[in-house]
């Protein structure tokens, strides 16, 4: 039962991704062509409000439902890791028109071919694990 809340938040995620057309390949293309404000508005407003959340967490004004302090662990820094990994991700994002969240939402939409993309992404994660000691971070 403790997992049901994550299922419900996931449903909300799937609905907002679909209804705001974030899972449409066209919206991603349009964003990279700078021909619409839509995606910039979504990411920008989410980040602005996210900063306010982080402020409340840092000031300990908001704790988890169990009363624990919320510490947001910083991501690993590495010029090669972040920049090269980021560029490779961006190439795939603009080609598939979907990042790892929208891929799953598109399954719910009944898009069969997205399963190939998900298989590829899982394979990509596996290949990263296989080669991570040989590539720069």
């Amino acid at each position, binding site marked *: 039962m403790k997992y049901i*809340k994550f*299922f419900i*938040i*996931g*449903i*909300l*995620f*799937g609905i*907002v*991704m679909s209804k*705001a057309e974030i899972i449409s*390949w*066209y919206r991603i293309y349009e964003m990279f*062509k700078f*021909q619409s404000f*839509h995606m910039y508005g*979504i*990411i920008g407003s*989410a*980040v602005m*409000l*996210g900063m306010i*959340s982080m402020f409340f967490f840092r000031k300990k004004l908001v704790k*988890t*439902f169990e009363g624990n302090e*919320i510490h*947001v662990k*910083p*991501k*690993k*820094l590495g010029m090669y890791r*972040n920049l*090269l*990994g*980021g*560029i*490779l*991700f*961006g190439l*795939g994002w*603009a*080609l*598939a028109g979907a*990042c*790892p*969240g929208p*891929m799953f939402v598109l399954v*719910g939409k009944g898009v*069969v*071919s997205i399963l*190939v*993309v*998900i298989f*590829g*992404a*899982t*394979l*990509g*994660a596996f290949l*990263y694990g296989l080669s991570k000691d040989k590539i720069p971070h």
Partner: protein
Amino acid sequence: MEFITQPWAWYVAGPVIALIMFLLFYFGERFGMSSNLETFCSIGGAGKFVDYFKIDWKQNKWNLIFVAGSVVGGFIASYWLSPSDAVMLNPQTVQDLADIGIANAGQTYLPDEIFSIDTMLSLKGFFILLIAGIMVGFGARWAGGCTSGHAIVGLSNLELPSLISVIGFFVGGLVMTWLILPLIF
């Protein structure tokens, strides 16, 4: 009901995404979709080949449940909350896509030139989908996160690794959109 069935504006979607991030923190977890790909590898037995995948994936179970919910959410939104599948695009975008070989942009939710069953079953179409996926999966794990973990959570938390990664996302996305896509179709 009309405010639900019409496409949602950015100023609705952005705050809802921020709320999702907040709720996941409130429930003691962290918003990040691409780590599920590693969990799939671990469940599939990748730990037998690479130690990196020898993790106790059960700690990520909440995220798999979240993924299952997002599939159901996609189903609900598509079948019950969306009377039309058309995407209203900038006429310039429609023209630009026609010029590179993607016809009737916006009349359906996704371009048939990439996502139709016929395309998927062609050799070229299959490899485009597969390679796109590999780049997303490899790139996200190399960078340590994707749009959710870096662009939403990381930027909100003013983290340098996330800023560099998001700049990378855009460099890659711009190169694909402006230079490579015109050559593919």
